[in-house]
């Protein structure tokens, strides 16, 4: 891998830290021998859970009838929101807020896919059969999905305890932004809409929950990833002593990218379900559940304003964020926006900053951790602004970036919002990247392409990459007074234990809860170096058990915690073991303890390698012969380090917060070409550089960069959770939520710049896992802005969207295509349609037919039963669908504004396991040619499962149903339908072709 070799001058002479070596984990993972939750055997009698989920974005839960489900053989228990409200307390988040969240909907549903009822049965099939039988009656309410609209006074309100959907608003002033803007030579603004996305792990949520009668609590096995501060949230919700909630995680977790933090509400619900069922309960989330209702990154609207000089020196920045957290806040939300608060000015020397954070509730899936954690949203705004200022001041964007970056002599640098940037030489990193990535060649290529009239652009993006979160930063959401009342929060404690047994075998346990990152390998490298062993001599176990491990609230896998925190804790614990063993050995070697070295499995005098004793002998002495140990040395060898960094201080009274401990630096540039015929943006070249200080293992680091590139590419081009304006969810499967595969991903050129180790971590290592989440989306957006000369770039870069940016008027059809035939359907949340049809009967006859339930039952496609339900109202059962995809719906239609036999309006609703539909329409009857011309229009909203997984076909399927209805209407009236869509298209095509012959 020539692209990511450690430069000669910083390559370690000996030792394993810094070496590229095969991953220990891969010995089992690549053989299919990993141990995931679903691989762990469960007790006999363990039940399986399934959830009834909301088909509506916003509705009152009027009634829940689970009697049929409970009567099913093999069904043991159901739990509803009412049960949760009775048996648990709302799950807390880091500040006082008006949201009561119980894991199951209480009184109202607030997003499509929200769990409403949990059911436990002997297997998952039965559990899903039972879920199908549970009848939930809803009263549908208007929904709101846009975070800015949601803050308006007349927007539908989600939470009864708040008169606004803006559940937290904080305003920060750092420096003198008003003066900076007033005195600025130039100002400009830009509004960013960052999309809602996630990174989807292969393994979904998985948990096995059992009530423990000894403690009165629960034993839980799950792939929860931490932070373990959330363990407290679960215990408090369950009204338990924290120690009575024992949580274990298995050896392996199949990816997470942050998402598995938010399995915790499900754990709380499953605990209540297991208690009620008096059996252990297991739940493996399926993909539909994961995509609709697990956790996503908040989408965000940001208005960014900049004050700058004519030469492009940025003097002030104003950021107004509307951060869309969906229906509920779940700990540690709204953390992402606060995690990045300290670096709101990125790596630039901007000293005047104003930030306004609106934390907004909308009728969408609630948010959680996603790799990047607030960074992609922030840096998209800041780096797009830097590109804009370059355009507006007529200079190369890279010159502008260089002009504004802080210089090497300023480290450690306290950014205006409080982050203490620990080390780096940003200009050197940029220069090395430009040089090694051959920017000059890329510029020549752009010039040549443009000379040929092609749309080619170059983009740049820089980022400060925070790692190891300060557990206190979330308190910045509170006011200074609230913080004073609550007491200080800061730090980030990491725990690693190193033990040496009686035969000198080394065992390491840690709290880093990996999901495939290679932590075992890196920890083995670190500990081996301290003890003069090889990584193969070190056995690392990273499954966790809250009842037995050393851990603290910061434990877990998030925010690039491993390289700075876990590596430091491992280094500290291994150092303590080394010091202890050195003292034991020193007595045997007759040398002072500080004159002892550990090499190749021996402990020896530094100045005389022959004066040596095998490592295992010292381990043996500590266990077999405590009496032979020096007086003040305890028997056994087991050291647990609880490592913290003093730089992680609480939020100051002026709202300054050092949000993270170590800050790496990333710089990317790229060349893209836009195809004017298709709207496709092709990444021609992508260069990425990361200074993350000491690299523990270049292979692992490269894996993080390439993985982050892949997910960032997805965010840039493909991935978005789509909601209609009415809250209908559209991205329920991987055919709708598109994730890049190897076939889509271009290769990238990695540059390894001169590292600047962190002075605050024990090995100098900083995180590297998130850098491309920050740089890649905006780097490519900046390149597209450069190629097209436009300011407003929205992700993902769907070709259809790009095409609209670059194409003017579309050529109209010729006269051969009649205007009504040419009308493509517009983008609307509803399925709309209109048309007309000649029916061979008088208007009076047609009218009578339309109001006769018996005859209508013969006309309505799939109608099994239809009866009058009051004046001009009908109720019945219909089987609706397309082809084999169909479901039974309970339907109700009300006719209004009747003008017999001329016109009427109708509204209807249909509900079934496939989803829910609300529609309205109108028809007019006019006598014509001895029959009746029926003119109709309709508008249908579909929500629930079919809308989420079948969006591609819904419009066509609706057209097909209407067509069938109209044909049946004509037949019922005594005629034969001809030439109606969709078959009418054939005739249209024939006419078209005929025009050419």
């Amino acid at each position: 891998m020539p692209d990511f070799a450690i430069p000669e001058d910083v390559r370690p002479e000996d030792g394993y830290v810094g070496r590229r070596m095969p991953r220990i984990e891969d010995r089992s993972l690549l053989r299919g021998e990993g141990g995931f939750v679903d691989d762990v055997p469960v007790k006999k009698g363990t039940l399986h859970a399934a959830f009834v989920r909301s088909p509506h974005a916003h509705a009152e839960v009027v009634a829940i009838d689970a009697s049929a489900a409970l009567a099913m053989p093999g069904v043991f228990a159901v739990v509803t929101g009412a049960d949760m409200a009775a048996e648990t307390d709302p799950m807390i988040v880091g500040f006082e807020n008006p949201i009561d969240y119980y894991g199951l909907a209480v009184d109202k549903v607030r997003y499509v896919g929200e769990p409403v009822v949990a059911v436990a049965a002997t297997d998952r099939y039965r559990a899903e059969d039972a879920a199908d039988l549970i009848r939930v009656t809803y009263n549908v309410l208007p929904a709101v999905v846009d975070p800015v609209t949601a803050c308006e006074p007349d927007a539908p309100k989600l939470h009864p305890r708040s008169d606004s959907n803006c559940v937290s608003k904080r305003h920060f002033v750092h420096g003198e932004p008003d003066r900076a803007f007033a005195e600025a030579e130039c100002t400009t603004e830009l509004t960013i809409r960052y999309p809602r996305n996630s990174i989807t792990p292969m393994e979904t949520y998985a948990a096995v929950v059992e009530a423990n009668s000894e403690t009165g609590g629960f034993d839980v096995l799950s792939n929860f990833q931490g932070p373990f501060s959330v363990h407290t949230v679960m215990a408090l919700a369950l009204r338990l002593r924290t120690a009575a909630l024992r949580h274990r995680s298995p050896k392996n977790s199949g990816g997470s990218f942050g998402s598995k933090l938010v399995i915790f509400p499900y754990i709380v619900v499953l605990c209540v379900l297991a208690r009620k069922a008096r059996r252990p309960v297991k739940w493996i989330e399926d993909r539909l559940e994961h995509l609709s209702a697990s956790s996503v990154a908040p989408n965000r609207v940001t208005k960014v304003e900049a004050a700058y000089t004519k030469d492009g020196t940025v003097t002030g920045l104003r950021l107004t964020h509307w951060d869309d957290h969906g229906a509920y806040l779940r700990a540690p939300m709204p953390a992402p926006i606060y995690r990045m608060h300290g670096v709101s000015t990125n790596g630039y020397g901007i000293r005047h900053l104003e930030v306004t954070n609106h934390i907004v509730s909308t009728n969408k899936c609630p948010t959680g951790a996603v790799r990047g954690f607030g960074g992609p949203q922030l840096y998209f705004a800041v780096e797009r602004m830097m590109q804009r200022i370059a355009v507006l001041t007529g200079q190369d964007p890279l010159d502008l970036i260089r002009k504004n970056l802080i210089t090497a002599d300023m480290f450690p640098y306290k950014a205006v919002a409080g982050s203490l940037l620990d080390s780096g030489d940003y200009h050197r990193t940029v220069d090395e990247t430009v040089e090694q990535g051959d920017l000059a060649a890329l510029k020549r290529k752009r010039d040549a392409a443009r000379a040929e009239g092609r749309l080619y652009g170059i983009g740049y993006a820089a980022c400060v990459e925070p790692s190891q979160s300060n557990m206190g930063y979330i308190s910045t959401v509170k006011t200074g007074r609230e913080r004073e009342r609550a007491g200080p929060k800061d730090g980030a404690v990491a725990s690693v234990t190193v033990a040496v047994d009686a035969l000198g075998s080394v065992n390491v346990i840690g709290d880093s809860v990996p999901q495939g990152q290679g932590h075992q390998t890196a920890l083995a490298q670190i500990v081996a170096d301290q003890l003069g062993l090889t990584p193969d001599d070190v056995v690392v176990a990273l499954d966790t058990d809250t009842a037995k491990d050393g851990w603290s609230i910061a434990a877990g896998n998030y925010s690039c915690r491993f390289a700075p925190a876990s590596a430091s804790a491992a280094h500290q614990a291994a150092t303590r073991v080394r010091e202890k063993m050195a003292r034991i050995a020193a007595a045997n070697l007759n040398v002072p303890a500080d004159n002892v070295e550990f090499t190749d499995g021996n402990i020896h005098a530094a100045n005389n390698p022959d004066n040596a004793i095998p490592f295992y002998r010292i381990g043996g002495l500590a266990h077999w012969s405590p009496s032979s140990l020096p007086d003040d040395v305890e028997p056994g060898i087991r050291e647990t380090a609880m490592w913290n960094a003093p730089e992680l201080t609480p939020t100051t009274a002026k709202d300054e917060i050092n949000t993270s401990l170590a800050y790496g630096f990333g710089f990317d540039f790229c060349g893209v070409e836009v195809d004017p015929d298709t709207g496709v943006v092709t990444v021609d070249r992508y260069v990425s550089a990361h200074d993350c200080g000491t690299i523990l293992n270049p292979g692992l680091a490269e894996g993080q960069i390439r993985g982050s590139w892949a997910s960032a590419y997805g965010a840039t081009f493909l991935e978005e959770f789509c909601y209609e304006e009415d809250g209908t969810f559209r991205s329920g499967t991987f055919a709708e939520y598109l994730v890049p595969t190897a076939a889509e991903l271009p290769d990238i050129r990695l540059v390894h710049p001169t590292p600047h180790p962190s002075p605050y971590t024990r090995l100098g290592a900083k995180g590297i896992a998130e850098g491309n989440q920050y740089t890649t989306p905006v780097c490519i957006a900046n390149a597209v802005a450069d190629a097209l000369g436009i300011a407003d770039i929205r992700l993902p870069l769907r070709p259809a969207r790009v095409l609209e940016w670059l194409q003017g008027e579309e050529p109209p059809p010729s006269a051969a295509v009649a205007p009504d035939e040419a009308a493509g359907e517009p983008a609307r949340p509803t399925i709309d349609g209109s048309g007309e049809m000649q029916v061979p009967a008088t208007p009076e006859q047609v009218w009578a037919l339309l109001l006769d339930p018996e005859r209508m039952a013969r006309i309505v496609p799939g109608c099994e039963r239809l009866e009058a339900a009051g004046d001009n109202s009908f109720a019945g059962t219909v089987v609706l669908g397309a082809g084999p995809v169909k479901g039974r719906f309970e339907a109700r239609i009300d006719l209004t504004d009747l003008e017999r036999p001329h016109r009427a309006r109708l509204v209807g609703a249909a509900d079934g396991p496939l989803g829910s539909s609300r529609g309205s329409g109108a028809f007019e009857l006019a006598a014509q040619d001895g029959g009746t011309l029926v003119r109709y229009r309709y508008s249908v909203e579909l929500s629930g499962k079919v809308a989420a997984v079948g969006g591609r076909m819904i419009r066509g399927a609706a057209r097909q149903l209407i067509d069938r209805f109209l044909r049946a209407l004509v037949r019922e009236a005594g005629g034969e339908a001809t030439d109606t869509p969709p078959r009418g298209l054939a005739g249209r095509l024939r006419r078209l072709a005929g025009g050419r012959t």
Partner: protein
Amino acid sequence: MKPAPFDYVRPESIEEAVAALAEHGDEARVLAGGQSLMPMLNMRLVRPEILVDINRIPGLAGIDDEGDCIAIGGAVTQGDLADWPDLAATLPVVADALPHVGHFQTRNRGTVCGSLCHADPSSELPLCLALLDGGIELRSARGVRTVSADEFQQGILTTAKAPDELAVRARLPKARQGERFAFREFHLRHGDFAIVAVAARRAGDAVSLAVGGVADRPEVCHWESLPDDAVDDALNDLAWALGGSDDIHATARHRRQLVRHLGRQAIAATAGNRAAA
């Protein structure tokens, strides 16, 4: 994502299969490769009472050259067909289209007739069936009938196959001397259903263009002659006439643009010219 309860039979002969279909009618589904049916079952979008597994029936697994046509048995997988040595010579447009049908792994399971019967408007194989004006042989306890592509493909997921009928083979006319074909597809990811796919055939002056992904089924436009200078206008009218809708992946306008763009490329390719940029 677990299916509702269903029964399962695995007939050993076509007669047994159609007898099962006759008995259960619309409550039965034929299981061939299962690449569409299994996800729909798991999502409970379909709830048949019984699955009739045709994978072990002898006589459905063959690919036969019948002179004018290639007959593809009901259990022939897309992978089998792609590997068939005579494919490129006899059905060049199918050979071009098959690599776009799902992925290598799904093609090893998914059947040709299954894809045709599923009738996804964006699928490549129904597009080829439409362009070539092939036919489907349907067997039932009532007898045998062959249905033309135009009659068979009725709309979204909807075909002329009656619930008691089994598609025993698809017949695709072989490329004749002098015919030229081209296939072009636009998708966001390799292996996805097409946003727009087109297949073109030129025979002498006559040009046919089949378009998938826009209307509710693949539609074919046929021109007895289509001079080069008329192509753009013809395609623009076709793009508008096909209608098309917005969905989360693309807009109606984007689809029209792709019909114009891919259509021009495909038609040019059948003329032996390099595709227009």
